[in-house]
């Protein structure tokens, strides 16, 4: 009986000792966050303050992104990638939708736009119901989760040249770019997200991730204007297998690719009509370089 009691006591002490660091770690993180509560954002002439976003974050965001911004809210467990991506871990300071070069922090405007735009094919809705001030405060709040903003500055937005007139030649040239940089490996030759690599894709955290299916009619995650699409493949989607092609595609070629990608999309467009008139065929992965 005495031995049993001693064993139980030892077990309890061991459990208590093991449990001690857990609240300490959490407290440290909270302290870190507290030290960054003065984080600001700047959207035009609006200044956002992290401290003012605590209430809306708790009401609207914490269920997915979690109290510590680590993407581990109580609903995260039920999100099953690639069908439903996991919430963003703000602590990493890595964001898909940026106007800045790959590897750099997004601008405040990038985060501001992302909140209102939401992300199709995910649980992140379009939070267009906030006032601009509230959204700016939330941008500051999002930033305060990551020490990256303390140590780094956002990248400079990439330059997007004016959009040229779309022509059949440009669409054909875009198809060549699509073949050359091997977009089809993930997105498939018809843009159906069924390329040979599609099934193996994972994000930086090792979670399965799906390539964008151009044909199903949903919006690209980071916006659906021509400039948005240009920006997506020239900056890349950080944290995902979608790289930046800024070093592989010249600005003029990038517009050609935008026009070609429009022909793959379900939505009607002048590019799609032109492709139909041209009788444009999908890329042939086996064709020699430059002979599509």
């Amino acid at each position: 009986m005495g031995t049993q009691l001693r064993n139980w006591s030892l077990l309890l002490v061991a459990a208590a000792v093991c449990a001690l660091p857990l609240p300490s770690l959490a407290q440290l993180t909270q302290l870190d966050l507290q030290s960054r509560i003065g984080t600001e954002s700047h959207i035009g002439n609006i200044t956002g303050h992290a401290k003012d976003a605590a209430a809306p974050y708790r009401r609207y965001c914490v269920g997915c992104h979690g109290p510590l911004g680590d993407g581990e809210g109580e609903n995260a467990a039920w999100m099953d990638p690639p069908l439903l991506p996991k919430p963003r871990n703000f602590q990493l300071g890595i964001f898909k939708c940026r106007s800045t070069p790959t590897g750099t922090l997004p601008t405040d405007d990038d985060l501001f736009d992302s909140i209102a735009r939401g992300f199709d094919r995910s649980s992140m809705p379009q939070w267009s119901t906030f006032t601009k001030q509230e959204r700016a405060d939330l941008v500051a709040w999002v930033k305060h989760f990551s020490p990256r903003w303390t140590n780094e500055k956002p990248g400079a937005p990439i330059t997007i040249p004016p959009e040229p007139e779309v022509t059949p030649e440009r669409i054909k040239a875009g198809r060549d770019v699509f073949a050359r940089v091997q977009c089809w490996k993930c997105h498939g030759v018809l843009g159906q997200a069924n390329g040979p690599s599609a099934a193996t894709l994972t994000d930086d955290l090792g979670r399965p991730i799906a390539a964008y299916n151009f044909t199903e009619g949903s919006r690209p995650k980071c916006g659906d204007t021509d400039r948005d699409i240009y920006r997506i493949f020239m900056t890349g989607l950080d944290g995902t297998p979608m790289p930046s092609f800024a070093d592989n595609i010249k600005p003029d070629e990038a517009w050609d690719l935008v026009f070609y990608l429009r022909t793959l999309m379900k939505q009607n467009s002048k590019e799609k009509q032109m492709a139909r008139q041209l009788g444009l065929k999908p890329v042939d992965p086996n064709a020699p370089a430059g002979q599509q």
Partner: protein
Amino acid sequence: MQALRGLRLRNIFRFATSLASVAVVFASVILSCSQPAHALPAFARKYGLRCSACHESWPMLNYFGQKFKDNGYQLMNDRDAPIWQNPGYWPVTFRITPIWHRVSTGKVEVDTYAGGLPTGNSAIQRITSSGFDLSGLDFHTGGTLEKNISFYVLPSSDPTGAFHFEQVFGRLDNLWGSPWLNIKLGRFELDNLLSEKRILTLTGNGGIYQTYHFIPVGDGNIFGQIGDNQFGIEYMGHSWNDRTRISASLLSSNDGNVNLSTGANGYTGFFAGSQAFDAGRLGVQRVGFYAMVGEAATYYLTAGGVPIGGSGISNKSFSREGFVGQFYFGPHVDVQVVTQHGSDNAWFGQGYGNAILTDGNGGTTATCSSPTPGCPLNNVPGTALPAGSRAPSWNGVTVETHYVYSPQLIFINRFEAERMSQQANGPGYAGTGGPSASNLGNITTYTIGYRYNPFMTSRAGFAWHNEYNWLHQDGTGPSLGLSSANINTSELLLGFDFDF
């Protein structure tokens, strides 16, 4: 006698002090125990959002929830169609509320007895009753049948378990890809920004908006009640961010009764519009209007003197119109305001309008005919209004303020006033009882309360609800020689409001 009064006062004071102390202690406990809120059952299970994302406090919608509803219960994230859900997902929630309440009604006429026998006389007395009780049971099912095709079905029972369909509709959303084109058909809540179907209070008089149901004393028009769900078809359009909203509905003038029995040949239009404004740190403010203009039958053909359901003719007109404001003062305080000007045709004012007795569940009982006492009046051929009859009109206002301590704890305060501006029985009225007093039927009511959700998950919701309502109405009580027939009623309610 004086001593007795003093003792009573001391007791009341002691009781009030105790009550205040308990309230302070309870408030301190719940303020210090607030935990993170979780999600709401039916839709949260689908989208993984907390209930607080769509509700200021369940069931009252916030701006985002209104947008979600306007989009046809869709987040518009291309994952709204049920094909994206686990096949086991079933969009159903039930709600019921076991309660304790104390209801006190002033000036009830009661029989008097002497020696165990009725005296044949009456006395006026306040009746107070208290005890444990139950609300009805609601089964909410709603969501999308396919992308941009949504539905809602709500079988609802009274506390005895007698069911009816409180809400049933299908909706075509975002036709041709435009948020400005949505069509709904069925029985649905009217497009009121401050919807009675999402009211935060539960008492008999405080659980409805008096402004949405006000009817002058003796008026027979049951059809203009904008708080009730109505049958019809609704066009609704909104901007992509829901800042601008408009809607127009064509409704049957039957106050939601089924089988084309009541008011079957009358139609009503309901129109609403609102515009929201960005007010910086204060939040998004919204102002709008509504108007209900309709007509309903006053004469039902009879067989053997009994009105025939569905045969209503001799339509007369009525209208309700007003302004709505939703004003926010940061994340914690908001004020919701609704005004109303109402008017009924003089025939309604004299009690004509609903000659068919309804059974309370949307059915009818056509076994009653006027002029039998208690039976609704029927405007049979040759009926004439007494001299001095006028179209009754009135004005009303509802002001509801909220203090949202956290998504889990909300304090509610509501004031409503309904004031007659023109009585149906005007000067020189030659009918029974003569002209009405100018304040006859006026209502003033206050409701205060709070709802505390100690926890919420994406599977269930639970609220501790505490509320007090006081209502005063002028001139509608029995007078029996008293100088005033005003009635004061009050209700205290405590309960567990839960859903799963």
